[in-house]
Every structure is written in structure tokens, then in C-alpha cells.
């Protein structure tokens, strides 16, 4: 069991004043089987009344509006979350698991996770890629996933800023470079093609100095995949790191693909260009009984270690939220 404190700062700067900003935010980690969000707070400047709801996948949504004129909008999300180590996976499943997946599909309950979606859809390039890495349905579903994980990791190089937030998978497949969002979309599209329900997870990954070895992730925001396995349930797979998910993965939201779960989604009035900077800081804390007021009394100010990912000017404001 691990406890993490997370600071997630987002700042929009507009080159001229805007008004009537409306925004919805998906930054609060989910509370479900393996994870509990113990505290979450979102501060908005200019000040706004932040309301909460949840979407049809039970992801928490915070939303607000700012009617008056402003040229800067900042979000400060503070989180305390507990994550459990997932149960160890077997080496493989019975071959009959395929049959179980078929029966399951016939009920329609996994429709969303078996049907191509905006970003995770089959393309001719994906089919070529599948045969190149020897992706087939021969073995049991878990073995297929393990091989696919290796295959994607070996064939595509993790390269920050090599694709854009709205890039279709073909860009990464063609250039053989991508970020975690691309790795995830490619894996999801292939798993669905094989009849394995698959969904996109938007989240954070905690990287201490040990876990940094062997990976070169540039950011604490991350994305990975969950696949549904008979007898096991939803299983986290991290194709960017060629690993299964462990207690360092913190799940914020799940969806069919990135389009369902961007950290922020907003509309404003005014013809301004916006510039976005994002900083995320995650710290592991040993103490299981963190006093609640820690979250409220100002200990959690921005620290030096907050990494601001360089700002982008020309592209749409969402650009930087790409999950790397």
C-alpha cells in the first residue's frame, strides 16, 4: 500500500482578455477497488465556484465558469491518494478464456471497450504493424497481452513531443515514435481487434530515483491501458514501459480513449490565443494517517521540484495536456 501527495498546477495565459470561460476538469483520482482518493482540492483563479459531478464512467468531474474578463486562469489541484499493489498475475490463462470473452461480448456489457473509438481504431497501418510484430490470437489472452506489450515497446520509441494531443495512431506507427498516449491507443485498438475489452486510463506515475532507471518518461502525467481478463477482471498494462501496472500508477479517469478523459476541457469567449503550462509534483509519503488539515493549512505550496513542461504558443491550448 502506498500513499502519495500530488500537486497538479495548470496555468492558461491568454494574449488578450477572454470572458465567460467554462471548464470541466478531470484530475481527481478514482476511488475503486485498488485505490482510494483520500482528499482532493481544486483551487481556481480567478475565483470561481467549483461544482462536482461525474460522467457516465463514474470519473469525477469538477466544473466551473468565470464570467468576468481575465487574461490568466490557474488551477491548483491537490491530492492525497492511497494505492494498493495489484494481485500478482498468473503466467498465462486457460485457452478457454477466449470462449469466456466471446460469451461476455454477446451480453453487450463491454460494448464500449470492444468497439473502435475516435483515437483507438483500426487502420491499414495498424494491420501492417500487427503482422510485423507477430500479433495473433493463438495463445490465451494474457499471453497475447504480454507479447503485444513487448512488441509495441520494441517497435516504437518513446519520444517526448513527437506527436500532438490529437494525433491519430498512424503518425506514431509511421514514425515509430510516440508518447504514452500513442502507445496506449495502439494497444487498445489491437486488443479490441482481438476481442479483448480494453480501455484507456489517464493518470499519474510516481517515479522515484530507482524506478527512473530503465525508463525515460518526461512527465508525471501518464496514460496506460486496462484489459478485461476472465477470472481476473480489469488488468492494468503499461505499454510505454513494457510492464504491468503496479502501485506506482495512480488512476484518474478511464475512457474509450484520450478524447473521453482530457484533464481539462474548456470554452471561452474572446479571440485570444492561449498558452498553457502544466506542472505536476508527486511525493510518496510513508505516513498512513496524514492529518486532514495538512491539505488545508498551506503546507502544500508549490515546491522547487515542480516541473513546468515548456509552454506552447501556437497550438490549441489542450496541446500540452497530452499524456506523455
Amino acid at each position: 500500500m502506498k500513499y502519495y501527495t500530488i500537486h497538479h498546477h495548470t496555468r492558461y495565459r491568454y494574449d488578450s482578455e477572454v470572458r465567460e470561460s467554462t471548464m470541466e476538469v478531470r484530475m481527481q483520482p478514482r476511488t475503486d477497488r485498488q485505490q482510494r482518493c483520500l482528499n482532493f482540492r481544486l483551487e481556481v483563479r480567478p475565483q470561481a465556484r467549483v461544482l462536482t459531478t461525474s460522467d457516465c464512467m463514474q470519473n469525477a468531474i469538477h466544473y466551473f465558469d468565470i464570467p468576468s474578463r481575465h487574461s490568466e486562469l490557474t488551477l491548483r489541484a491537490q491530492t492525497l491518494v492511497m494505492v494498493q499493489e495489484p494481485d500478482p498475475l498468473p503466467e498465462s490463462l486457460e485457452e478457454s478464456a477466449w470462449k469466456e470473452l466471446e460469451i461476455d461480448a454477446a451480453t453487450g456489457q463491454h460494448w464500449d471497450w470492444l468497439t473502435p473509438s475516435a483515437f483507438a481504431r483500426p487502420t491499414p497501418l495498424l494491420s501492417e504493424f500487427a503482422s510485423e510484430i507477430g500479433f495473433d490470437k493463438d495463445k490465451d489472452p494474457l499471453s497475447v497481452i504480454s507479447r503485444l506489450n513487448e512488441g509495441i515497446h520494441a517497435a516504437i520509441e518513446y519520444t517526448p513531443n513527437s506527436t500532438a494531443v490529437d494525433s491519430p495512431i498512424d503518425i506514431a506507427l509511421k514514425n515509430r515514435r510516440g508518447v504514452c498516449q500513442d502507445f496506449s491507443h495502439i494497444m487498445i485498438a489491437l486488443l479490441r481487434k482481438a476481442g479483448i475489452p480494453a480501455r484507456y486510463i489517464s493518470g499519474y506515475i510516481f517515479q522515484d530515483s530507482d524506478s527512473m532507471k530503465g525508463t525515460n518518461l518526461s512527465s508525471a502525467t501518464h496514460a496506460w491501458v486496462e484489459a478485461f481478463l476472465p477470472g481476473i477482471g480489469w488488468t492494468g498494462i503499461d505499454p510505454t514501459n513494457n510492464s504491468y501496472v503496479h502501485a506506482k500508477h495512480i488512476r484518474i479517469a478511464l475512457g474509450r480513449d484520450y478524447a473521453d478523459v482530457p484533464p481539462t476541457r474548456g470554452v471561452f469567449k474572446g479571440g485570444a490565443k492561449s498558452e498553457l503550462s502544466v506542472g505536476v509534483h508527486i511525493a510518496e509519503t510513508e505516513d498512513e494517517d496524514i492529518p486532514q488539515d495538512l491539505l488545508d493549512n498551506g503546507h502544500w505550496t508549490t515546491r522547487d521540484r515542480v516541473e513546468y513542461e515548456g509552454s506552447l504558443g501556437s497550438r490549441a491550448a489542450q496541446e500540452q495536456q497530452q499524456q506523455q
Partner: protein
Amino acid sequence: MAVNGVTTQDETVSESAISLFSNYALDGTIFDEMFQENGRPRLPYQKLLQSILELQASELTQRQQAADLTFLNRGITFTVYGEDSTIERIFPYDILPRIISEKEWNKIDRGLCQRIHAINLFLRDVYHEGRILQEGKVPFDLIYSCRNYQREMRGVKVSNDVYASIVGSDLVRLPSGEFAVLEDNLRVPSGVSYMLANREVMTQVFPGMFGGYGIKPIGHYGQALLQQLQTLTPKGRDATIVLLTPGIFNSAYFEHTFLARVMGIELVEGADLLIHDGFVYMRTTSGLQRVDVIYRRIDDEFVDPLHFHPDSVLGVPGLFNAYRAGNITLANAIGTGIADDKAVYAFVPEMIRYYLGEEPILQNIETYLCLRDDERAYVLDNLDKLVVKAVGESGGYGMLIGPYSTAREREDFRSQIQEEPRNFIAQPTLSLSRAPCFINGHVVSRHVDLRPFILYGGEQENTVIVPGGLTRVALREGSLVVNSSQGGGSKDTWVLQDI
């Protein structure tokens, strides 16, 4: 006497009267609204026929011109969307009313109440438990693959569980004389203003005619609609209700202004509304005013750029979250379009049996789903006989009428069907009934349908249908397409007090 098979009981008919009907065709395979097969007029039409014969052609022509002028002066128009341009037209109007007996109407009324109630129960079920899908009565893939399925509506509580409160269902009369449902319009059905305008013009042009007939009134539609919208909010009569229009370029803009006026509510565009702290406000000259109900005439995809089309400027950013929070009522609800998908239509009789345990009072038209292999094979083999429709289109767009199609059109549809079978259904080419119309100095028969307007209030007994509806006419001889966008017109529709 008998003229071209048309008989009247009047033995003193003049020459001019005979020539008036000289082009009137009767065909045993098509139900004629005015004449029985033996050429005698049906009971409800007897007085009308008498009046026509007394008035003669020149008089009828004058009244037709007076009617046209009234429509023009009132600006009762609609817009035809073309590929390159859009054209604003006067809605063609035929002065001879279509008449329905009370007995016939009562069956239609009961049948539609039953149908719309079942459809609303279906919508609630699909967006909550999904029982009908789990039990396989309606295939889940048909629903989940529907373009108008709104997954964000899953688990969202809708005011009074009323999803489709304002509905227009299209009925046709089959050769047997039975009415059957051709389609249901559950998103933003239009046409009711023409129904009301037709009646108004009719009373001006033929004031004498109404005296001889006991015709059920329809003028209360606006108030009935307002009351229905008020029941959707706990504030009731104190609620602030607005009509949200896409704007002046919409084909039904006339109707939007008309309905807002008769209800005495504000007509607004998206930019007139804003969301603050989860509530909807209207900008007024004296500041912001809270809005409780939006009668929206904008499709789902355009109501909120934050949730649906990000490029759309028609809607109100953040509206969906206010809606999800229960702070605003939308009529109709988001997501009703799954039930007017033309493939889902085929399952409405099943819905009636499933939710109500009743047999459908009004029948469906036999429908082939191209999604199913065997039915698609049949459709592809019989493209020259069937009517093929794209499931998500309306207004007569995306349609192939087999017997009147060219080989090239059929090949075009064949490849479209093979590419996207889910998107197409086919039905037999129907012999819509024909009604008398006054065209170029003659009374002639033209194909008609009927669109009654249903106001659903949560139960069958709370449902209001003003008697009649909009009778649409395919004005071109032989044409089966009644849509205003495709050269159709309309006429006043009378439901008689018991005779």
C-alpha cells in the same frame, strides 16, 4: 350521376362541376380519402363535395389565391437546403381540407398515446437498467451503434422520466383504410405551426364551410404545449421557459417565432443564454434571468460545445453539466434520437408488448434491417421494388424509392448499403392514400400522409394530441414524397365531432 367513376348524390350537377372532376383518378389499389370504391363520397366528405360543386372552379381559384396571399403576407415560409444554396419558399397550401371521422381519430389517438408512452419507457430503460437489451428483445448493438445514442445520458435522471415530450409521428393510410405509423420524430419535430396556420387561413377563406361541420378545435395547441412544458419543472406556472432556436437560417425558424409568440415565451439563440454556477441564465435588458425549461429546437450535437461538437456556436457552453445536475429541463431530453432511428423503429411494436403488455393499436410498416444478413440480401435483390432509407435522416433526404429510381441510383445505394448496412432499412413501396386537391382549376387526387403532434406528459392519460395534425400532400402527380423539402405541400385537417 357519375363522372369518370366519380359519383355524387346530387342529380343536378352542372357541366362545370363535371369538368371540375374530369381529371380525378380513382384506383382500386389506393385508398381514396373522399370517395368509396363505388365512386360515392364517404360520409365525412359529403358536405364538402356539395360545397365544391356549388362553388365551381372560378370561385375555388379565387379562394386559393386569397389563401396564398395570406401565407405570403404572414411570411409563413420554410427553407429548402440545396447543395449550393438555400431557398426560402412559401409553404404550398391546398384549400380542400382532409377530413377524418371521430371514430377513426379515436383509434389514432389511443394508438399514439400507447406508442409514445412505450417509447418513453424504452428511453428510460436504455439509459438506466437496459432490461430490454439484456433480455434480447432489442439488440444492444443496434442501440449502442446508433449515432444518436448519448452514452453520457446513462444514469442521468430526466424530469418526470419524460424523454420525448414533444413528438410528431407520421402516419399513412394503407389500401385497407387502416392507418399505420411510418416513423416517429422524437428529436425536434416540426410542422405544428403549419397545422395551426392552415386552420387559420381556412377559416378566413371558407368561413361558411365550418358552420356545416362540427370540427374539433386545434387552436389550444400553444397553451397545451406551454402547460406540458410547465409540468416538467416543480416551479410549474412560475417557471421561466424559453424556446432555443438555431437562428434565422433554420428551415423551421418561422415555426420557432410562431410558437414562442403563441406561448408568450422568449425566443432565444445560444448566445442569449449563459451558464453560471451550474444554472442557466438568459441575458435580458434588465440583467440575467434564471431559466427553468428550454424548449430546444437544436439537435443534441449542437446544444453544448463543451460536450458535443466543439466547433458549434449554436448552443450554450456548459449546458450539459447544468442539465446533469438537474438545474435545467430540456424538452426534448438529450438522447431521444435513438428511438427515431429508422432501424430501431422496427422494434416499437415489441416495446409496446414488453413494457405495456398490450398489442399495438397502430401497426408499423414492415421493415427490413440491412444489418441482418438475410434481410439485406432480400433488400439488395429487390432494390427496384422497395423504399430504402438511411436510418438517421429525415425530411425525405437519403432515400431511394425503388420503382421510381434509375439504375445508377440503385447501384449507388447498393454500394452504400454494403458498406454500412447498419445505416439502412427498407420498406415496401407504400400506396399512400390519396385525397382531393384543387390544382390548376381541377379537383385531382394526390398522395397524403398525416403528422399528428403528441404532447407526452409522463402517462398515457396525461398525453395531449390536438385532433388532426398536419396533412402533407405530394403535390406532383404520382409522387409519393410529401416532405416540404421535396416539393410537398399541406392542407387543413379536420377531425369531425361524432357524425
